[in-house]
């Protein structure tokens, strides 16, 4: 087996990772984002139903739960890996050839990583971790 053949047979772990994040982010966004927007973005502000983020005490209370923090981290960060891919290809489809370049890939996927880091920081600094709810 030649050196070149051996090189091409290596698993593309980078591609595997980014496609995995794209698929999981897209799936999660499809399953849970609509209900968050409906309840927290529409029904809550309209006053139709009591929503957890409408009052400071209920909001901080639920935000302090470690399971909720973990859920919010996944909810916010994972879809951004999906969005990064879709928005980059939206630019490609609109004829922006530069969107295929490596630095643009760094920019878009780097933004998803940055959102993940900021989300971790926000969740760790906003409400002290507590196991009680309500």
């Amino acid at each position: 087996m030649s050196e070149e053949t051996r090189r091409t047979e290596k698993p593309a772990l980078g591609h595997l990772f980014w496609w995995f994040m794209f698929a999981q982010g897209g799936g999660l966004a499809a399953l849970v984002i609509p209900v968050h927007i409906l309840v927290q973005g529409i029904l809550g502000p309209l006053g139709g139903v009591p929503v957890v983020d409408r009052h400071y005490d209920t909001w901080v209370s639920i935000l302090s739960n470690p399971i909720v923090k973990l859920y919010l981290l996944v909810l916010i960060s994972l879809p951004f890996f999906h969005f990064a891919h879709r928005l980059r290809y939206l630019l490609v489809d609109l004829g922006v050839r530069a969107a295929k370049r490596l630095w643009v890939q760094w920019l878009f996927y780097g933004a998803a990583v940055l959102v993940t880091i900021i989300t971790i920081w926000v969740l760790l600094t906003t409400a002290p971790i507590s196991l009680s709810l309500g």
Partner: protein
Amino acid sequence: MSSEADSSTHVATRAYKPGMSTGWWTRKRHYFWYMVREFTALPLALWLLWLLVEIKRAGDGPSRYHPHSSTGFVIFSVICFGFALYHSITFLSLAGVIIHLKTLDRPVPPRAIVWVMFLLWLAASIVIGAVLIGFGR
């Protein structure tokens, strides 16, 4: 044969550059909705960033926390909700093409996989909705 092969290898090759106008997606309805599907990422990203800001604002203390209630915010959310539904429907509908499962050595029909995904969406929405409303006052 060898001389032919040799001569063919010396022919200068040019990379194929497909010519595509920037407005190609406006020509057919199918293309347009494909681009809308790609675009759904932007409003959803903006709404999630708003959620992150809302979480951050909870750290400012009770006197400075005022949840958004403006008409503009509700309109923004309604628009995002439309895009979110479109993302969900198009993404989950593709599950039958992407996911390949076998039970008892027989492939699960794609339509069954799509049904399961839509039921999962319904179940997740009920559970999350119940938590968001149930812990409110």
